[in-house]
C-alpha cells in the first residue's frame, strides 16, 4: 500500500450490450511514474481508467494497488488513494459554488468542515483558481472548469491521479497551463489522451491501446517513431515532429 504500485492483471470487460471494451489488459505502474495511455476512439482507455478507480467491475482479471485488490470491499481505501479527473468537467461539478465543490471530496473522507475548507483553498491555489472560489461552477469557461475539477480531486490528497483526456476542448493557453501543472505533480499519473505532444511533455512512458488490449509499451520517443503502429491505432506523430 505504502508504495502505491498500481497493477492491472488481465483485465477484461464487455458492456451489457455485448461490446467488448477490454480484452486482457495487463501492465504495472511504479510509484511516481507518469504514464500515458493512447489509442483511437473506442480503444478502451476510459473503460480502463474507470476500472482502475473501482467504478466498474471487471468481468475477468483484477486491479491491485500495492497489495490491495480493488473490489467493492476496498472502496474506502481506493477513494483515498486514487483521484479520477473525468473527461467532461461538467459531469464532475455538482455543488453550487466552486469552493463547496472542491471541499466535497475531503468532507466525504470524513475531515472536519474547517479542514475541508482549508484543503479546498490549498487545492484551488495549486491550480491557480483561488479567485473563482465563490462562483457557481456552471458559468466558468472550459479551462476554468477543468482546473476546478482537478482541484476537487487533488484536495482529497490522492497518491495516484487518473486523467481522462485532460486537454480535450481546451484552448492553447489553458492546455499549456494544465501541462505545467501535471509536470509539477509528484503523484503517480496515468493520463488517457490523444494529445501526443502532451505525452512528450508530461509522460516518461506510453501504453498504446487497440481493441481493448495493450499493443505497445515503451518510452514516448521510441513508440511515436513506429509509424505503422500509430497509423493502425488512428494516431499521428506529435505535431512538433511534423513539418
Amino acid at each position: 500500500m505504502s508504495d502505491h504500485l498500481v497493477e492491472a492483471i488481465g483485465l477484461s470487460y464487455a458492456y451489457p450490450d455485448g461490446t467488448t471494451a477490454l480484452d486482457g489488459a495487463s501492465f504495472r505502474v511504479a510509484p511516481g511514474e507518469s504514464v500515458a495511455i493512447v489509442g483511437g476512439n473506442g480503444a478502451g482507455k476510459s473503460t480502463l481508467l474507470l476500472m482502475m478507480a473501482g467504478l466498474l467491475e471487471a468481468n475477468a482479471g483484477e486491479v491491485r494497488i500495492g497489495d490491495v485488490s480493488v473490489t467493492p470491499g476496498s472502496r474506502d481505501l481506493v477513494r483515498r488513494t486514487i483521484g479520477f479527473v473525468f473527461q467532461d468537467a461538467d459531469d464532475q461539478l455538482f455543488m453550487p459554488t466552486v469552493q463547496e465543490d472542491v471541499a466535497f471530496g475531503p468532507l466525504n473522507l470524513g475531515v472536519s468542515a474547517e479542514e475541508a475548507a482549508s484543503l479546498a483553498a490549498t487545492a484551488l491555489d495549486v491550480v491557480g483558481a483561488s479567485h473563482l472560489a465563490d462562483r457557481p461552477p456552471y458559468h466558468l469557461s472550459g479551462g476554468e472548469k477543468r482546473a476546478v475539477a482537478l482541484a476537487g480531486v487533488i484536495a482529497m490528497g490522492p497518491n495516484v491521479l487518473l486523467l481522462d483526456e485532460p486537454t480535450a476542448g481546451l484552448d492553447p493557453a489553458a492546455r499549456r497551463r494544465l501541462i505545467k501543472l501535471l509536470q509539477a505533480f509528484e503523484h503517480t499519473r496515468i493520463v488517457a489522451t490523444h494529445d501526443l505532444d502532451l505525452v512528450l511533455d508530461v509522460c516518461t512512458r506510453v501504453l498504446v491501446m487497440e481493441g481493448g488490449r495493450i499493443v505497445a509499451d515503451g518510452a514516448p520517443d521510441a513508440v511515436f517513431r513506429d509509424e505503422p503502429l500509430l497509423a493502425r491505432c488512428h494516431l499521428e506523430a506529435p505535431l512538433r515532429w511534423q513539418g
Partner: protein
Amino acid sequence: MSRLESALADLRLADTLASRDTALSRLDPRAKIVTTIAFLFAVVSYERHTVVALLPFLLYPVALASMGEVPWRWLARKLALAAPFAVLMGIANPVLDRTPMEVSQGVTMAGGWISFGSILLRFALTVTAALAVVAGTGMHALCAGLAALGTPRVFTAQLLFLWRYTFVLGGEGARMATAREARGGRGSPTLAVYGSLAGHLLLRAFERAERIYRAMLARGFDGEIRSVRTLRWSPRDTVFVAGWVAFFIAARAVYLPLVLGRLLTGFGG
C-alpha cells in the same frame, strides 16, 4: 439560443441569484422554510370565497422578493408559466357555483367567480413566495435546511439530483434541437422522428446521469451530500420567524383590510 436553452438558463438563474449576498440569502434556510410553511398554512386555511382578507398576505412574497433582490420580471415569467394549472383547477367553479353573493353593499356576484378569484390569488401568493425563497436560498442550501429540519437524507439528496438532472436532460435536449436545425430540420418533427429523438435524448441523458453519479462516487459520495457551508442560526433568524408568524396570526385573527380602512378614514364607520 433555442427556446429550451433560454428556459433552462432562466431556471438556472434561481441558483445564480441565490449565490449573491442579499438580506434574504444571509438568513438561515431553516428560518425561511419554517416561515414559508406557516405562510402556506395561513393562506390555505381561509374559507374558499375569501379574497379581500387574503390581500395582507401579499406583503410576505413582496418582502421576500425585495430582501432577496429577486427580479420581478423573473418571478412574473415563472408565475405565468405555472398559471395555466391554477386556471385549470379553478375554471369549473363559476360554472358549478352560481349562487349570488354580496361583495359589498349592493354589488352581488356569482359565488363561483369569487372562489375562482380566490384560487388564483392563493396560487399567486404561494407560488411567488416559494419562488422567491428558492431564488433567495438556492436549491443546495434549501435541501441542507430541509435535512436539518428532519427530512430524510434520501429525499433531500434525490431532490438535488432531480434539480441537477433537469439541467442535464434539458441541456441534451437543447443540443439535439440545435443539431437538428443545423442539418435543416424545420418546423415540428413528425411522430416517427419525434419518437427517435426522444429515445435518443433519454439514452444520452441516462449516460450523462451515470457519469455524474460515478464522478460523485469517485469523490466518496455515500448518499449524503455534505457541504462546508454549515447552517448557523442567528438572532436575525429568530426575529424573521417570530415577526412573520405574528403577522400571519394577526392577519388571520382580525380582518386587517377593515382595520386599515378604519384607520385611514379616521376611525369612522
